[in-house]
């Protein structure tokens, strides 16, 4: 908008008179409305341009002032901050105090003030520095089992302190942009702390999951043509897949005709678990073996029937010994007592 040339309204009016004198009546009549319109547009453009210029100037001023203000009053803000923090009751106050002290030693307030700089580079640098200190000092809080809300809490306090200063009260026009800028900063900081927390949780979860997977699906070749797989613990989709694969490849490797799945150790059998078991059994049928599900407890039978789970195509039995007897019968063997 700045580069565009604007015809001052006074010239336009002058032009209008000229045209009125020199041009025939009809032509002027037609053009008259168009000229009014262009005068209006010129005026509107000028207003917008001036307003934008004004806003631009005040924004720069506001940023400079905020940056200066924080840098000049660092000590006082820190003192106020400490007072406010001690007023908030917390069960982990000592660890959090250490955390905040580390952050301030790393120049937290300096970085915060630099965030108000109008140079993009300086802002980025401030953000980077803050992120680095977070990386360094958030993990100890995590290890001390401090909830993420309590780690974030102190940063809300400093936001309040900055908003309540005399400086801000004298310039009410600054309040809105100040809140806006600070929210951007603190939102970034808080999201970052959250990220650190959630990444660590995710890593822990993955480690535990792989540990469970290792213990998950053992396959026991019991007799010739008979294989047993005991399942212990909860079954989710990932584990069900692993179980099915182990079952299928194991059955082929052992040339099993009968596979016994023991679900005695499965605490809860819901629709999903039942579906996984049925799927595994059907897959076993396809590769040319037979599947017997054993270890059905009374309450499991009850839930299955009340949930309407169709297990018609499966052979199910209550105990392992029954299952073994059936499996032996299917492979043409039997157990005999020797006197």
């Amino acid at each position, binding site marked *: 908008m700045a580069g565009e040339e604007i015809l001052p309204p006074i010239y336009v009016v002058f032009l209008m008179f000229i045209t009125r004198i020199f041009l025939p009546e009809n032509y002027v009549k037609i053009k008259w409305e168009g000229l009014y319109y262009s005068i209006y547009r010129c005026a509107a453009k000028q207003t917008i341009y001036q307003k934008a210029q004004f806003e631009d100037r005040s924004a720069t001023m506001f940023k400079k002032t905020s940056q200066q203000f924080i840098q000049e009053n660092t000590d006082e803000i820190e003192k106020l901050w400490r007072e406010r923090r001690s007023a908030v009751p917390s069960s982990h106050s000592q660890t959090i105090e250490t955390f905040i002290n580390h952050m301030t030693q790393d120049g937290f307030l300096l970085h915060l003030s630099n965030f108000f700089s109008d140079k993009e580079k300086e802002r980025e640098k401030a953000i980077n520095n803050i992120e680095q200190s977070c990386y360094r000092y958030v993990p100890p809080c995590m290890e001390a089992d401090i909830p993420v809300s309590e780690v974030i809490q102190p940063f809300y306090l400093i936001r309040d302190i900055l908003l309540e200063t005399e400086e801000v009260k004298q310039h009410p026009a600054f309040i809105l942009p100040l809140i806006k800028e600070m929210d951007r900063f603190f939102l970034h900081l808080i999201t970052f702390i959250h990220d650190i927390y959630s990444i660590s949780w995710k890593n822990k979860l993955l480690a535990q999951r792989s540990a469970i997977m290792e213990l998950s699906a053992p396959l026991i070749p019991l007799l010739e043509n008979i294989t047993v797989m005991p399942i212990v613990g909860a079954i989710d989709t990932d584990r069900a897949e692993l179980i099915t694969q182990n079952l299928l*490849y194991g059955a082929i490797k052992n040339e099993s005709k009968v596979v016994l799945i023991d679900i005695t150790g499965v605490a809860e059998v819901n629709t999903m678990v039942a579906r996984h078991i049925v799927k595994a059994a059907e897959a076993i049928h396809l590769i040319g073996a037979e599947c017997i599900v054993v270890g059905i407890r009374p309450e499991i039978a009850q839930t299955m029937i009340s949930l309407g789970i169709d297990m018609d195509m499966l052979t199910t039995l209550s105990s392992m010994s029954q299952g073994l007897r059936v499996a032996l019968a299917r492979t043409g063997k039997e157990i005999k007592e020797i006197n």
Partner: protein
Amino acid sequence: MRIPILKLGNYLLVSIQIELDDKTAVQFQQDLLNMIHKTGSTGVVIDLTSVQMIDSYIARVLGDVVKMSELLGCQVVFTGIQPAVSITLIDLGISFRNIKTAMNLEQGLEKLKQLLEG
């Protein structure tokens, strides 16, 4: 491409060693039914050991083959379905519940014998 169908006593033996496409599968269906009719066989073993992929259409064609053969008085046993193939089929919702399967050709022939004689 036609799939060879071998005669072994009273049984027919089919080993599918290529990836089945729609056309080949339909051709195979026709050939097998003609062969059963011509030879009067009572059992068929279809070996799928070297088949790595079965889609829903091929699965349906194979399922139809079994039902059609039974109409002609001939039992069908599938052998050597790969674990990956079986998982895919189950995921597609094709369970082949009424179809006889065996792990390998030997067991398949044994199973056919049991079905027909015992």
